[in-house]
């Protein structure tokens, strides 16, 4: 919590998120420095996914302030949201792959959205698919993939745009230990290339085996930080 201000990329201050009576996050404050690697952990329903959702403004906070790279998320206009989201690479817990687009098209979409030309897109997508080990399924549609294969596509999509910040929600939940370790190496590589990485996970072993600050949530509150 003693980061220098100018190096802060994410700042959450007293953030709460209520759904009806249900309080998914309560008075959460957190400061993330540029190029930090953070684990967010906690039991089921603690608010990990909600926290990630608030960061890319998939939802708005009920109260409190969130600043990402100097932008106050409560203040930005609808028009600015796409720009904000392109700063992030997000691995969703439920993958959120488009079932009617091929693996290639799903990953390529991020680059198309950013305005790249098809001939720039092709090599970059194939490269990242190869890195997650799914390049041989590039022309398949997500519904025919196995759980782990889908997850690797989701990882590929999150990394292909070279995002400033990677938000990974349970990025290895459907993977066997070897594949999981491999994906973690990729997240490490992205981190070393300068990105800030936030990983929500239950996998205590993963947390123990890797360096990184650990934030523990419980029932929407900060339980412990180390």
């Amino acid at each position, binding site marked *: 919590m003693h980061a220098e201000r100018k190096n802060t990329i994410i700042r959450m201050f007293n953030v709460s998120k209520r759904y009806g009576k249900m309080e998914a996050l309560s008075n959460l404050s957190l400061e993330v420095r540029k190029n930090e690697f953070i684990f967010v952990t906690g039991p089921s329903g603690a608010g990990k996914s909600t926290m990630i959702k608030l960061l890319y403004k998939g939802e708005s906070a009920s109260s409190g302030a969130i600043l990402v790279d100097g932008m106050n998320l409560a203040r930005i206009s609808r028009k600015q949201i*796409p720009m904000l989201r392109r700063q992030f690479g997000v691995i969703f817990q439920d993958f959120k*792959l488009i079932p009617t687009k091929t693996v290639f098209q799903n990953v390529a979409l991020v680059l198309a959205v*950013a305005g790249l030309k*098809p001939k720039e897109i092709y090599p970059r997508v194939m490269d990242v698919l190869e890195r997650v080990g799914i390049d041989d399924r590039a022309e398949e549609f997500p519904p025919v993939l196995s759980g782990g294969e889908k997850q690797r596509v989701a990882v590929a999509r999150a990394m292909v745009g070279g995002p400033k910040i990677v938000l990974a929600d349970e990025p290895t939940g459907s993977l066997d230990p070897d594949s999981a370790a491999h994906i973690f190496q990729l997240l490490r590589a992205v981190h070393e290339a300068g990105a800030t990485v936030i990983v929500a996970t239950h996998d205590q072993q993963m947390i123990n085996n890797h360096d990184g600050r650990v934030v523990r949530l419980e029932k929407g509150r900060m339980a412990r930080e180390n």
Partner: protein
Amino acid sequence: MLIFAAKRALTDIVNNKFLHIVSIVTIALSVFIVSAFSLFFNNATDFLDAWRTGVRVIAYVGANVTEPQRTRLEETIRNLNGVSVVEFISKDDAFNDLKQKIGQQSSLLDGLDKNPLPDSFEITLTDSYRRLEDIEKLSQSIGGLPYVEDVEYAQKWLHRFNGIYNLFKVTGLVLVSIFFIATLLIIANTIRLIMYSRREEIEIMRIIGADEEFIKYPLFLEAVAQGFLGGVAGILMLYLAFILTVPNLAPETVFSFFEIRFISVKFSLTIVLCSMMIGWVGCFFSIRKFLKL
């Protein structure tokens, strides 16, 4: 930008064949309904119009008019606006006509020693000059000419016919508008349903940072393409129905003066354009709801 959007629209169509086919079929059926009714309505109006061809104005010439005077009068009438044919009917011709008209009772005219009927002109009007007001105006001008004693036309019949004609036209227009609006809503509804089953896809695109334009442009192009294909398919369906049924109706055996015509090329093009526009509008209104996600 547009090229990329078009490219994405194309892969999108391939990826969502079912939805596109359903949409095109619905548009085609809607276009079919509206254009079938237009076809019916146009032909019925033409039919009534053709019936009106029978309308003639009779100008009775004074008893003491000389032949040169009469010829000059004929010339004057012929040059009036709206006059198509002027035919001279001598009083003898008129007497024979009358005999025929009374038919059975014509024997009672045999007792007459001299023909009391006047000479007259029978004036046929041009096609564009057949509205009731036009006829009335023309009759008045003719009545004001020298040597014309009286002007006659089927006033009562015309009034009645005009009533039918106008009622029919108004009803037809009301119905066409109703059908148009109803099918427009049906198409918008269908597009909304399609957007609904694509809402997840739209939401995911939003979440990975697509702006509205990126999502909208291909969808609009697709909707316009659907409108185009649906419009063309609808008109082809109508044409098929037309060539299958019309020979069996065979109206020409009853009405030699009338032939059922298909909708014009211009009107077909208008319909296709409209259906493209409807695709666009339908997309425009249904997309808003799902872009808010």
